[in-house]
């Protein structure tokens, strides 16, 4: 019977193209608005490292005191002395301190101009901890960390620029006039949100082209290219800066089990207590150890306009559905005589439900196709509302295509439920008598 009802549905839609067009437009526009804003919301709220997000933890420690922080929330980064102390304690499977540095990459060919590239100073654990995908070689080793080696990992894009995409492991890259040996080349890797550097990027950034060892960067006094927050003047010079209470370093730890995470939390709390006992902190230990998704949530990475626009567009979809309900009701009830005849000839209420819901489903499919086209246009226009780093994340993929069609069909069926129920209640006797 499905094909029969489908045939009837299509015939019915062709019978009144204006009404049909209005319903398809209502569904199409409503779904497109929702899906466009959803695509942004999805991009900004997704788990950037789903396979591991529950095992990766960001460490926070209140070294400023209650008068300098808001709502008891410890600062979003660590001082050099705390980060180093926690790293050297080796309380996690893997750990890495990270801070952004800006470097000039100087090509071997003197005729080519130096290029400014985003870079991170970090530890060797960074690469296996974050599952960074390599296309050549590997990250440097812990031994390289300990030896403060001049090594580097570069991105595919930079490898393309410097070495025309060729084999570059073992070759040297000149950063700010200093040579670093390349140990590996990674894909252009920038998980979004860029969870490991939210304080400096807001969560959305193109990522870096170069990674160098943290210890080497400190030796070279490579300045922090991100946020630097101090509650007191750090004093002149690099060493004073390292000794200061300025916060500028992220410390990430890999803790595979909940038990390890809890033990690590206790250790951090104990460390803060030690600092209190030593007189450095004049307040009770205040620490946080948060996994990736909690960290992104606390940092409010999802832009508020993304949430608001999603809510507004869902409201718009509801209004479109209410209109569709009215149009379907008019369309179905105008066919009360036909319903009466069909009931007289043996159609049960279930048959009437099936016929009219399938007809509504065809409107949903058509609305979904229109919605898909409009979603495509909407996504092209996302840049008019959202900043570029966020706008470029909104894309159409098979999941969004499927979701758009499903939402359109489900929305049509929901809209059709009441009109169909009314249609099924048509009393054949009255319809036939009134004729």
């Amino acid at each position: 019977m499905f094909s029969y009802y489908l045939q009837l549905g299509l015939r019915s839609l062709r019978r009144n193209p204006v009404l049909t067009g209005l319903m398809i437009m209502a569904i199409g526009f409503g779904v497109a608005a929702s899906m466009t804003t959803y695509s942004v919301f999805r991009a900004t709220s997704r788990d950037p490292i789903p396979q591991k997000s529950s095992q990766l933890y960001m460490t926070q420690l209140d070294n400023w005191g209650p008068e300098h922080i808001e709502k008891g929330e410890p600062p979003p980064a660590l001082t050099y002395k705390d980060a180093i102390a926690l790293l050297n304690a080796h309380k996690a499977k893997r750990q890495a301190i990270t801070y952004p540095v800006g470097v000039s990459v100087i090509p071997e060919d003197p005729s080519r101009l130096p290029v400014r590239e985003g870079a991170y100073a970090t530890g060797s654990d960074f690469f296996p901890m974050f599952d960074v995908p390599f296309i050549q070689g590997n990250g440097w080793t812990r031994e390289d960390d300990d030896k403060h080696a001049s090594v580097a990992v570069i991105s595919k894009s930079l490898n393309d620029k410097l070495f025309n995409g060729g084999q570059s492991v073992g070759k040297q890259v000149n950063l700010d006039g200093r040579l670093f040996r390349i140990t590996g080349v990674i894909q252009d890797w920038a998980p979004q949100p860029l969870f490991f550097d939210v304080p400096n990027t807001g969560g959305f950034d193109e990522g870096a082209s170069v990674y160098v060892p943290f210890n080497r960067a400190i030796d070279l006094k490579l300045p922090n290219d991100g946020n630097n927050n101090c509650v007191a003047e750090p004093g002149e010079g690099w060493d004073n800066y390292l000794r200061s209470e300025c916060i500028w370093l992220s410390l990430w730890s890999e803790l595979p089990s909940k038990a390890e995470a809890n033990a690590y939390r206790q250790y951090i709390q104990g460390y803060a207590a030690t600092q209190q006992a030593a007189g450095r902190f004049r307040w009770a230990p205040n620490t946080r150890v948060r996994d990736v998704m909690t960290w992104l949530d606390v940092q409010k990475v999802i832009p508020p306009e993304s949430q608001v626009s999603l809510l507004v567009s869902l409201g718009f979809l509801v209004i479109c559905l209410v209109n569709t309900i009215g149009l379907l009701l008019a369309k179905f009830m105008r066919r009360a005589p036909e319903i009466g005849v069909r009931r007289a000839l043996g159609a049960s209420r279930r048959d009437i439900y099936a016929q009219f819901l399938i007809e509504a489903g065809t409107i949903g499919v058509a609305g979904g196709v229109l919605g898909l086209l409009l979603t495509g246009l909407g996504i092209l226009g996302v840049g008019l509302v959202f900043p570029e780093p966020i706008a470029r994340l909104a894309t159409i993929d098979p999941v969004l295509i499927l979701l758009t069609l499903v939402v359109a069909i489900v929305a049509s069926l929901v809209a059709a439920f009441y009109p169909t129920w009314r249609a099924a209640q048509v009393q054949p006797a009255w319809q036939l008598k009134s004729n």
Partner: protein
Amino acid sequence: MLKMTHLAKVYRTEVVETYALRDFNIDVKEGEFVAVTGPSGSGKTTFLTIAGLLETFTGGQYHLDGVEVSQLDDNARSRIRNEKIGFIFQAFNLIPDLNVFDNVEVPLRYRGMKAAERKQRIMDALERVGLASRAKHYPAELSGGQQQRVAIARALAGSPRLLLADEPTGNLDTQMARGVMELLEEIHREGATIVMVTHDPELAARAQRNVHVIDGQVVDLAEEPRFHGHAAHVANS
């Protein structure tokens, strides 16, 4: 075939109860051609809609082909309508968007019949009413008499045991009415049970038996039935 005993149909509003049928008794035997007559508002169409399971009744009993129908659910009533009853309406009630073939097909679709059998039955029924050549025409392209013939073909296609006709010639001119009436008589001669509601005494006279309804009650069960034939089904199959 059709037996109603002390049947009542009451329409209730907050302030008034209206009896459409009251202590209504009728017994139509298989193969009979019964005309139900009466003035407008007497309840004869209400009787027909209850007989056709298009409407429920308030009291009494109704046995259709031996089955007491008052407790049947919507599905069962729909199935009986589909398999045992054929309707012929005054206003033809063809579906305007469907061509003749598709109109006749409607009850067969609800019976879940295979396409080949449906086609065979439809063409047989249309040949029976002399409209096989108009299978692809739409109702609006046919005269009133032809539309009523299509409606009769639709009623016959499912080989029902009972044909219910409500003023089948009411919307037709004399010549077309005569043609339709002759067709009904022919169907009856082949064994169909027909119950026809009419207020036309001339048409009523052509039935085997007349039942007169006034104020929702049968007031005069006329003479004994004269059977023409006794086949179980309408003979189009």
